């Protein structure tokens, strides 16, 4: 892989080209960052699905899907999520490269044009979307929100996050809520689409081979028709320490209890110390040799999974486990004991070095996946300087045991959430 080339298309609109010919496909991701706001979350969440399911040129799911099949199964996937206190609306197009097609189709260019048709030229008339299309997507969004209850692990994590971050935008669900979805109509959804294009912070990332100029031109041309105003500026609310521990418990008809613990770490981007927390977190619960895996699972046989994840945007760590009701307290105590152990420096240099080696290898693998590459560069949009995986590896390797201990000492427990079964009550 050669270096990524970054082109500025407009105010807070960047196009990054990552030249890489080892893949069979070209992948283009369009990431739109906007404020995470209760009032607009559902409106924005509806947009990507609405846009990829029809456009002016292909005005139905049937005609769009036919075109995608004709393009050798090009996929254009919508997604809604968040990064720190921002809502992230994205589109990811993946199509096979022209050199693997024998009938002369310009697959990459045609697929890109279809992506642009969807984003910039939807099926609207008189400044409104079609009522029927909006209603279909409303139904589907409500079903998607409802379906989150089917995955109890994810549900428990989201619930803990919501309680922990109730005073931060980060606590807002990027899909919004059913009440707000019901209020959507062809007018306010049109406004949301306009707002995303005029004021969103936009990153377009292309990983592919050969020509990219016509594709860059295509996007330039589309954005030249849009008047940019009130461009989104990213602000992250960082709560450094938990003032008191919030505890919540919910009862459901489940066989296994879910325990989720949320911690504040004091350290978030753009701090220079995020790598210290990354190493500390991996040592604690990020690998199959981590403290949590070895002690909570292997030594005490309390669970099948127990792991920790660090969110560097917000400086938050979540530890998750699935345990029996009677073992919840024991698991919780053991998790806290493992954190204490790192604070006290009870880990060997071997453990530390192995953790760093694991993290470095994980970072090196980014280059082998189009999706990971696009997301690597796309999500650095608010960073002062873009970093390559190698640069982060260098930082990881320079973290000393003292820095790990300092990072561990800053952790405070904020929220404990338990989802438990009925029979055990």
């Amino acid at each position: 892989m050669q270096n990524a080339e970054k082109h500025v298309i407009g105010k807070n609109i960047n196009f990054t080209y990552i030249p890489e010919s080892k893949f069979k496909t070209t992948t283009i991701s369009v990431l739109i960052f906007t404020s995470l706001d209760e009032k607009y979350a559902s409106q924005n969440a509806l947009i990507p699905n609405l846009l990829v399911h029809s456009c002016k040129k292909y005005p139905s799911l049937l005609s769009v899907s036919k075109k995608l099949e004709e393009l050798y199964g090009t996929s254009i996937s919508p997604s809604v999520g968040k990064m720190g206190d921002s809502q992230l609306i994205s589109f990811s197009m993946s199509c096979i490269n022209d050199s693997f097609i024998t009938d002369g189709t310009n697959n990459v260019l045609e697929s890109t044009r279809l992506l642009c048709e969807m984003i910039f030229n939807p099926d609207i008339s008189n400044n409104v979307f079609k009522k029927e299309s909006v209603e279909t997507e409303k139904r589907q969004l409500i079903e998607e929100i409802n379906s989150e209850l089917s995955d109890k692990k994810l549900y428990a994590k989201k619930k803990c996050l919501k309680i922990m971050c109730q005073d931060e935008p980060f606590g807002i669900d990027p899909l919004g809520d059913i009440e707000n979805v019901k209020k959507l109509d062809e007018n306010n959804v049109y406004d949301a689409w306009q707002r995303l294009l005029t004021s969103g912070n936009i990153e377009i990332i292309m990983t592919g081979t050969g020509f990219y100029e016509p594709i860059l031109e295509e996007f330039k041309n589309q954005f030249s028709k849009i008047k940019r105003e009130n461009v989104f500026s990213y602000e992250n609310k960082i709560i450094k320490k938990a003032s008191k521990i919030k505890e919540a418990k919910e009862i459901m008809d489940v066989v296994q209890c879910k325990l989720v613990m949320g911690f504040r770490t004091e350290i978030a981007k753009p701090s220079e110390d995020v790598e210290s927390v990354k190493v500390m977190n991996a040592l604690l619960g990020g690998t199959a040799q981590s403290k949590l895996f070895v002690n909570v699972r292997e030594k005490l046989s309390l669970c099948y999974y127990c792991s920790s994840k660090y969110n560097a945007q917000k400086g938050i760590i979540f530890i998750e486990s699935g345990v029996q009701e009677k073992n919840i307290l024991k698991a919780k105590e053991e998790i806290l004991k493992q954190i204490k152990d790192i604070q006290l420096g009870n880990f060997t240099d071997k453990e530390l070095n192995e953790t760093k080696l694991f993290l470095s290898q994980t970072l090196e693998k980014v280059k082998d996946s189009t999706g990971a590459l696009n997301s690597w560069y796309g999500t650095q949009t608010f960073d002062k300087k873009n970093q390559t995986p190698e640069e982060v590896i260098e930082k990881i390797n320079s973290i000393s045991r003292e820095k790990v201990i300092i990072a561990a000492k800053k952790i405070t427990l904020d929220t404990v959430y338990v989802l438990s079964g009925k029979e055990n009550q």
Partner: protein
Amino acid sequence: MKPKLVKNNLIREEYFYMKHPSGLDIYVHPKKRYASSYAIFGTNFGSVNNKFRKPGEESYTVVPDGIAHYLEHKLFEGKEGDAFELFAKTGASANAYTSFEKTAYLFSCTGNFEDSLNILLDFVQSPYFTEKNVEKEREIIGQEIKMYEDSPDWKVLINLLGALYKNHPVRNDIAGSVESISKITPELLYKCYNTFYNLNNMCLCVVGNVDPDAVFTSVDKKLKYSPPISVERFFPTEPKEVMNPEIIQTFDIASPIFSIGFKENVSENHRATTEEMVYSDLILQCVGSRTSDMYQELMEQELINTSSFTNEYFEGPGYSSVIFSGESKNPYKAAEIIKKHVQKIKSNGIDEELFQRIKKSVYGQSLSVFNSISGIANLTLDFSLSGKDIFEYIDILQNANINKANQALESKLDSKFSAISIAQPKNE
């Protein structure tokens, strides 16, 4: 003995294959420009292999459900410690999985490849089961089973298999139950290990930034020769008919999830050939893709949604079904429409334009798998253990024709042999 180079010019991929003197099938697929490498070592032993005998044995051995999965967990433990500890030194990321028909152990890494490969080959060839370490795992696996019991997506599939199959062990959950795993002992684990973890019954696939010669040389040093073994895998006779046309389980969920399966009549131990696989995949998309009449009507009637509706060709030794799944406010009505369209396409034949489109799209999707070294390795393992070849798949797909597709469709998707499984919200 020299490895054979196999190429595919259309997709510009190549791999080296060798049947090692030990009996092991070895595939090395170099991807020089990738940063990482991936190795997977698998055996033809999954949850369905619960009754078997070796030549000379009079009676069959019947083992508790979930033993293949239990063995997978325990194989990581060795006399000197566990394999994860060793992989930690090399920086590799290791894992394993058990499915209905196979068990596989794998790692991926960006450095120290040879050391990691040696660890993999060593630990899979060195079982160490004791009363103590087997006992320790019981609660961990018990929690894994309970985690799946709370997953309606998983249970709806397992329940469907239980409704479709009367006798075939595919009707049992891969991990077994808390009750069945309580019967697992070190002796039973050794019995399974010594029967199925024979190199003649296994396959090794390496994909990524590796030197094929070096891989073959280092593998050669590590393989423990074992005499060829012929295992008789017993499968009970399975009737054409389904066990139950319908099965319902309630969960704490907000909307129903359903799975409808169409059982195919296949002989015991039968596996689909590469050609059968190609046509099954094509037919599946012609019937259920977003441009099919079925999908269109289901969407118009608001009976499915784009984020959850999926289709699957579910195939293994002695079982084969087509399965459609998704969330639906009215699973019965969805099933009725699915059956109607299946019948329609069976009597009218596949539309030519649709077929040509689907051919292109299946080609594109198959090609995309070659982006990922883990994708290639897992597909190669799966194909090798079931007697298929990945390049042959691409070639047959290129030349696929509609007449053969219509012919293959005749023995598929018979509503008479279908069943529906529903996960129902408990308040309804």
